């Protein structure tokens, strides 16, 4: 009998330890934006419930905080909150948390999600694709500083979320699966760079 009590006690302590291990110390929550920051419109990409278009953009407002990381955090917060209309689906599993964000000089955003994004993911190739590209497109479309996104799970590199889409390489924006056209200024830069290339070739 005492043996069983001991075992139960051990298991309980293991479970408890796990809970605390998830977040050993909470950093003081800093505000993601200052009261003086202006509001900006962003397009948040959500999975569409029906139709051939995988992701549909919804216009929402965030505040233009000084740090890009904080703007990214706000966008991810909007994704976590989910869509406000019935025709769109929540992109992330419930309880998914953003643990950390790091943006490299080359414009790669490393987003570290809690394990829930993988363990709570229901699966399905298209569903997984929607989760990943709602994150990638929402960040890269609204924040030109971010060129590509690398998704980490529970602080480490993971091959896939639920067995399908490769996460080992950083992913770039893909608007072909959305209802949004690429931004005009990005198109405008193309001929300029092409002409610059041509002139440099002439020299």
């Amino acid at each position, binding site marked *: 009998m005492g043996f069983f009590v001991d075992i139960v006690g051990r298991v309980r302590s293991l479970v408890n330890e796990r809970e605390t291990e998830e977040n050993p110390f909470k950093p003081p929550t800093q505000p993601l934006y200052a009261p003086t920051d202006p509001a900006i419109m962003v397009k948040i990409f959500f999975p569409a419930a029906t139709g051939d278009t995988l992701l549909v953009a919804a216009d929402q407002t965030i505040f233009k905080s000084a740090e890009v990381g904080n703007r990214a955090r706000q966008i991810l917060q909007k994704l976590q909150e989910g869509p406000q209309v019935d025709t769109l689906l929540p992109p992330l599993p419930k309880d998914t948390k953003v643990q950390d964000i790091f943006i490299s000089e080359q414009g790669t955003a490393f987003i570290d999600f809690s394990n829930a994004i993988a363990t709570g993911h*229901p699966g*399905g*190739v298209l569903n997984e694709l929607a989760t990943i590209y709602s994150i990638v497109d929402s960040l890269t479309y609204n924040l030109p500083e971010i060129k590509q996104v690398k998704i980490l799970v529970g602080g480490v590199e993971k091959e896939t979320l639920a067995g*399908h*889409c*490769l996460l080992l390489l950083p992913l770039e924006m893909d608007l072909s699966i959305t209802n949004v056209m690429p931004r005009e200024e990005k198109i405008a830069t193309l001929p300029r760079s092409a002409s610059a290339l041509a002139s440099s070739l002439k020299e």
Partner: protein
Amino acid sequence: MFLVPLVANSPCLVRVIEFFYPMRVTRIAGLLAALGAALFIFGGLIRAADANFPIYFPGSKLLVKAETFNREIYLPLKEILESMGVPYTDALALETLTIRSGNARLVVTKNSALMSYNDQIVLLPSPVLREESRWLVPIEFLTMALTRLTGTEFRYRPGTSRIFAENVDAPELEMNAQTLGPITRLTIRCGVPLNLDLKRDNQRAVLAIDRSPLDPVRERVDHRDRLLRSVVFDDSDGEAKLVLEITRDVSDIRVTPADNNRIFFVDLRKGEPVTEAPPLVETPAPAARPDVIPPVERKVRVVVIDPGHGGMDTGAKGATVAEKDITLILARRLRTALQMRLGTTVLLTRDSDIALDNEARSAVANNNQANLFISLHTGYSLNKLDASSYVFVMKENFGEASTTSAPAGARDPLFLPWYLGYRTHRQASMAAANILQEELSKAIQGSTFAVRTAPLAVLSSATMPAMLLELGNLNNLANAQTMLDGGYQTRLINIVADAVQRFSESPQAAAN
């Protein structure tokens, strides 16, 4: 009995010792000595019988003696180089062989699997050997090194004993044997007209074929009955022929050509020599036989089917069923359908409920030289009414931005990151996916089976036409029930088999 304490903890050995216990010690010692001698002889370099190995060049052929060491086939390098006219230097003291062609230089070293190609190190699957003055290279050396050096392409299928160089024309030869009542019939099919010459001595019949480079789909026919022991394709002397091992019962062998000498029926008969008169199955009309369809060139020989998920990884979960179980059922049924209808070799990445990572799945296809890779999955949508299915191929240009090392113009870079393996066959993958989409959307209502692209882990390193079929929505109760229905599965499997057959006959299905 000194052995007992040493091995007592191994239960199987204990049983062996119990078995030997009644024997006298001397006898055991004798057995051990014999075992030791056997190990001494066979334990080192396992060397199998040497066989002739033809290499067919356009307009000429070279017969070399192949030798097998440690289950790897080795070819004499110098003979091949001399016949190709490639200069080389054999440095006795350095134990290296340097081969030059134009500005390119290749150095191989004795007993080393590393070779230097233009000062880059390339790893061979087995070491290069040197015996007396002969240099022996593993067969992969031809494709990995000699092709790069000289530009001569070599085609070699593992398990066969011939090599085709450059674009030498080698029509496929198919053989099939069956017992038809009193006779045994061997059916030989080829894409081009042939002439067969039959020679028989007692228990061997040799069918000499007048056309020399032939590419048999199978090296031998495994059919054994009262009249026939085996049929083997043999071109070890550079001349193609079929060797039939027959039994004493065979009294008459008759060769009947059909379809302008593209098909031959070789009928073995039993009993007293039948003269021409009795009307015993007088060359049955080929059109009446269901399996005599005009031979079409089929390029898909090996199909690998990947049942998604497995083991701990259940995949998507429906109310009553998990993705891993549906995919395994469908994969097994598809294997049977493809084997029966197309006669292709079909392999599954898993044939039980085990977990497997994505790299291991594509490795099954890569290691077996598959011509087509199909991964089966079921879908899951948060929308409970949705029941769409999709055909996925690898996302175009995926990962190319991350590989800055390969120069833009390099046609055939020496090393390819594993996740770029999909690249060479992406167009063929797209063609296969389009065929599958067409066939499925024609026959199954309720979904368009749209072709989509995604950066899929399981397809990224597959070096053959590869696609992923995602079926339905497990979150949709009715749809999940449909997928478990046997009739629906049969229909689905038949359509997929149709699509594989269509792809196999399409020009995109290039044999790799």
